[in-house]
C-alpha cells in the first residue's frame, strides 16, 4: 500500500486553496463540490491574490473557513450589493458572491436583480437546493409544488405559497447579464462541464463583460431527509425537470 501512495501516482487532489478545516456540510451535500470548483478555477486562473469572495447567510455562511482567500460575510441576501461596491472600488480584482436559494431568491431578490441589471462585473454562484438547509429545512422560494418541508409539512401549496421561483430565468432578459447558466455536480461529467462554465464566468468578470450567474441545482440530503445516493436520484428525477440544466444566455 505504502508503495502506491506517491505524489506521481495521485490522480485526484484537493485544490490548493481549500484548506484543512473540517467542513460542516452534511454527507451528500453539493456545497463541497461547488467549493472545490470555485477554488480550482480561482487558482488555475492565477487569481488567488486578487480574489475577494462574498459569503452569504445560509449553509455556505462558513464558506470563508474553507477557501484561503479574502472574504466578506454579507448580511442575508445582500451579497450582490456588497460585491457591487467591492468591484467598483477595486476594478482590477476578482469579486464573486456565493449564495443559496433563500439568500438570493427570497430576501435578496432586489439586490440580485439590480446588480445583474447594472451589469456589475462580478460572478454570482447560486446554489439551489430548494430548501433552507441551515435553519433546519424550511420552504424556500424554489421549493417544488407538493414538496414537504418544515414550514410546508403537507407539501408546498400554490394557493398558500405561490409557485417555485425560477429566478435564473428572470435574469436572462436583463441587459446587464452576459452569461446565465444552470449546472449540477451530481456526476463526473456534470462536474467537468460545470467547471468549464464557472471558468468562463470568472473570465467574463475579469474582462468586464457584465454579470455572470451560474446556478447549481444541488442536493440537501439532510433537509430532504434522504441518504446521499437517494438525494442525487431525487434531484435528477424532480429538480431537473423544474430547473432544466443548460446555458440560458451567453452573450459573450
Amino acid at each position, binding site marked *: 500500500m505504502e508503495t502506491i501512495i506517491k505524489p506521481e501516482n495521485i490522480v485526484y487532489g484537493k485544490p490548493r486553496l481549500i484548506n484543512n478545516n473540517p467542513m460542516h456540510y452534511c454527507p451528500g451535500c453539493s456545497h463541497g463540490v461547488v467549493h472545490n470548483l470555485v477554488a480550482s478555477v480561482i487558482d488555475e486562473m492565477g487569481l488567488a491574490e486578487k480574489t*475577494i469572495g462574498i459569503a452569504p447567510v445560509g449553509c455556505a455562511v462558513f464558506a*470563508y473557513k474553507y477557501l484561503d*482567500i479574502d*472574504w466578506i460575510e454579507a448580511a442575508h441576501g*445582500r451579497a450582490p450589493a*456588497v460585491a*457591487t461596491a467591492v468591484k467598483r*472600488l477595486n476594478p482590477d480584482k476578482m469579486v464573486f458572491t456565493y449564495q443559496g436559494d433563500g439568500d438570493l431568491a427570497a430576501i435578496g431578490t432586489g439586490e440580485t436583480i439590480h446588480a445583474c441589471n447594472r451589469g456589475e462585473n462580478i460572478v454570482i454562484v447560486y446554489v439551489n437546493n430548494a430548501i433552507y438547509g441551515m435553519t433546519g429545512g424550511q420552504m424556500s422560494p424554489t421549493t417544488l409544488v407538493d414538496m414537504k418541508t418544515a414550514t410546508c409539512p403537507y407539501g408546498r401549496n400554490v394557493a398558500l405559497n405561490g409557485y417555485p421561483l425560477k429566478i435564473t430565468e428572470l435574469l436572462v432578459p436583463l441587459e446587464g447579464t452576459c452569461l446565465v447558466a444552470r449546472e449540477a455536480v451530481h456526476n463526473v461529467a456534470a462536474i467537468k462541464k460545470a467547471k468549464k462554465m464557472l471558468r468562463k464566468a470568472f473570465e467574463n468578470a475579469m474582462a468586464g463583460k457584465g454579470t455572470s450567474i451560474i446556478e447549481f441545482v444541488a442536493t440537501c440530503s439532510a433537509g430532504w431527509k434522504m441518504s446521499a445516493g437517494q438525494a442525487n436520484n431525487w434531484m435528477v428525477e424532480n429538480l431537473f425537470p423544474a430547473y432544466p440544466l443548460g446555458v440560458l444566455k451567453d452573450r459573450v
Partner: protein
Amino acid sequence: MRQGFTCLLNNSMAEIKLLKGNEAIAHAAIRYGADGYFGYPITPQSEIMETLMDEQPWETTGMVVLQAESEVAAINMVYGGAACGKRVLTSSSSPGISLKQEGISYLAGTELPALIVNVMRGGPGLGTIQPSQADYFQAVKGGGHGDYRVITLAPASVQEMADYVALGFDLAFKYRNPAMILADGVIGQLMEKVELAPQKLRRTEAEIRKECPWAALGRPAGRQPNIHTSLELDSTVWEQYNIRFQAKYKAIEANEVRYEELYCDDAGYLIVAFGAAARISQKVVEIARKEGIKVGLFRPITLWPYPSKRLNSYKNKVKSILTVELNAGQMVEDVKLAVDCQIPVTYFGRMGGIIPTPQEVYNALKKIVNP
C-alpha cells in the same frame, strides 16, 4: 484616473463658497479623498447625491458615486467598501436610516469604519419632510440589534457639516467603528458661507494595505486570509469580542468627547441643545442676557460619546437646566443622567417638523427662571 494622484485637481486650494449643508457634505467628501458614496434619494438630503453626481468626482479623484436600488443596498455597499479599507459613506434621512440599521449593526460587529449621514426629518413612519431631531435615541443608543455604539457628531452650521466629514472619517478609522453625522433638516437645507479644505489625495492600494492590514483586497502569498464576519457560534468566543468592543467604546468615551460652551462661565442657568436647536438657543441666550438673565448655552457636538462629565461639573454651579430639542424630549434623559438628577432639568421642544421660534424658547426659559 484611479487612486487620484495624476489627476487634474482644481480643488488644490482651500476655497470659500456659499453652500447648503447637504452640498457641503458632498464637496467635503470629495476633498477628503473619499473613495465611494452609495445612496438612495430621500428628502431633505437628496442634494448630497445630486451634488456628487454633478461634480463627477470619478473624473477627477476617482471617487465612485452610485445610486443604489434601496437604502438597504446602499449601506451594504458601504459595508463592502469599508471591508476593503476604503473611505466610504452613505447618506439618508430618518426613514431611510431606519432601513440602514441592520447594516450599521454589521459594521459595528465587524469593526469596520464608515461614515453615515442622517439629515433628520419628522417621524414616526413616513412622517414629514420638515426638520426634526427625533432620531437622537436611534443614533446614540444603538439603532440596530446588539450592544454597540456609533460615534455621533451633531453639526450646527454648514461649516461643521463640511468639517465633520473629515472628523467622522478620521474617528471611524482611528477606532474601526461606524461614525454618523446626525444633522437635522435645517442644517441640511441652510445656506451659509463655508470654507472647504484643500483636496486630499485618495490613498493608493499600497497605502491602504499598509494603513489597514485587515482590508480584504486580495490575499498575498504568505498572509492569512482577511475575513470580515460578525458570526461566531461559540458564545465564549463571541463574549470576548463583545468585551473588546465595550473596551473600545470606553476608550472613545474617554478620548473623543466634544462640546461647545457659550456664556457658561458665569451662568446661573443652562440651555443644552444641539444642531438647529442650538442655533435657535444661541439667539435666546443673547436675548436673555440683554434682559439680565445669566444663562449659558452648552452644545454637545458628540452626542455619543456624550459630554456627561463636563455637564456634571455644572450641577453645583447652575440652578436649573433647560434642554431644547426638535423632538418629544430625548436628549433630556442623558442630561438628567449627566447631572445625576441633582438639579431640575426641563425639556422644551416642538415635534413633527415644527421649528420653535426664539420667543417660544425664551418663554420656556423664563418659566424655569421664575417658576
